[in-house]
């Protein structure tokens, strides 16, 4: 009988990827990237479904648009704006890092070891992306609730 702790394969792993607090802001960014990706995918599918109503005539189309003209609809759209901005900003950070830039230079390590790839540049980008997402949500809500 072989037992493995921490294994969360499949859908369980996608939804609940594990402990965040012990591993810093980078792990939080990783989780948010995953969740916003799933959220945007769900929005995309819902968006296609909603816009397909245009084929059913103007009355049906107008009724489907009304869904987003409520308080809940505005809050949902603000969330979509936030997810979109974070996913885009963090995605650009990751693309640059994954090309090998901004992660420091390999060299002889000295004690106490500090990983160069987990540096202030990366952390600042994550905080900036979170800030931009919050700002975009705030602006979106200001426009929608005006």
């Amino acid at each position, binding site marked *: 009988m072989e037992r493995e702790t921490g*294994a969360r394969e499949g859908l369980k792993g996608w939804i609940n990827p594990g402990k965040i607090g012990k*591993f810093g802001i980078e792990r939080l960014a990783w989780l948010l990237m995953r969740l916003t990706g799933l959220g945007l995918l769900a929005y995309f599918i819902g968006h296609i479904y909603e816009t397909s109503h245009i084929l059913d005539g103007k009355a049906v189309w107008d009724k489907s648009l009304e869904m987003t003209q409520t308080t809940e609809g505005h809050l949902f759209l603000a969330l979509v704006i936030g997810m979109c901005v974070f996913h885009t900003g963090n995605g650009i950070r990751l693309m640059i890092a994954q090309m090998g830039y901004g992660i420091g230079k390999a*060299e002889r390590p000295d004690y106490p070891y500090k990983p160069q790839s987990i540096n202030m540049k990366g952390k600042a980008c994550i905080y900036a992306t979170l800030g931009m997402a919050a700002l975009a949500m705030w602006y979106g809500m200001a426009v929608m609730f005006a």
Partner: protein
Amino acid sequence: MATLHPKLSDEHSQTVVSSTKSVKIKIKRSNPNVNSEERFDDFVVPIEKWTTVLDVLLDVKSHLDHSVGVRYSCRQASCGSCGMKINGKPALACFTKISELNSDTVTVEPMDNFPVVRDLAVSFERMINNHKKVMPYVIRDDSEIDPESGMREFLQSPENVDKYIQFSSCIKCGLCNSACPTMAMDKTFVGPQALAQAYRYIADERDKGKNKRLKVIDESHGIWRCHFAGSCSQVCPKGVDPAMGIQLLRGYLLGIRD
């Protein structure tokens, strides 16, 4: 509740002569070969300011409960045997002092993402297999044995050594694989340990086996599964920084970096 073993509680620790402090250690116990039961056993052990988690475990094993399963060897962060989750984060027990945990209670569990053998000991079979898969040795067609002049050296520059020396410090303790969120979701993922070792040899100018190695890692459960959460680098006790190695290797694979 903290308890001493009823039969052994009269015994005294031989490692403590002047301690006034103690720590409660909660050890996760299980034996998958017998049943699926899991439980935490609590022990109170006297400590000094230099006492490590491994010292405490060995004290428990010597004087309170001989059946605690723990693997260790060098006691100086060189062998990579005593990796475990200490207060929820993967670390070497011999390299973690109780005093730096700032807690009166220390919880130790087996590492995540490894099959448990018993209690705190996990199986390294899969990690070692992945390590072997990336061919962790210099590959060349020619040999250091020269039929005419005897032995010869494959020369390299100090600058080249600097490119890979930090990745050579890997002690195969498995902490990086334990912290990796992708490993938790994909058992077939090669893992940060093996990927960092792949980069170590690919960055070595003496090596001529890049293409062979890249074929192993350039697949769906290989390097592209890494999403740069950086947790592997945060727990590495030797400064290997596997996340950096993986991103540099990815840059190399994309043809962006040398």
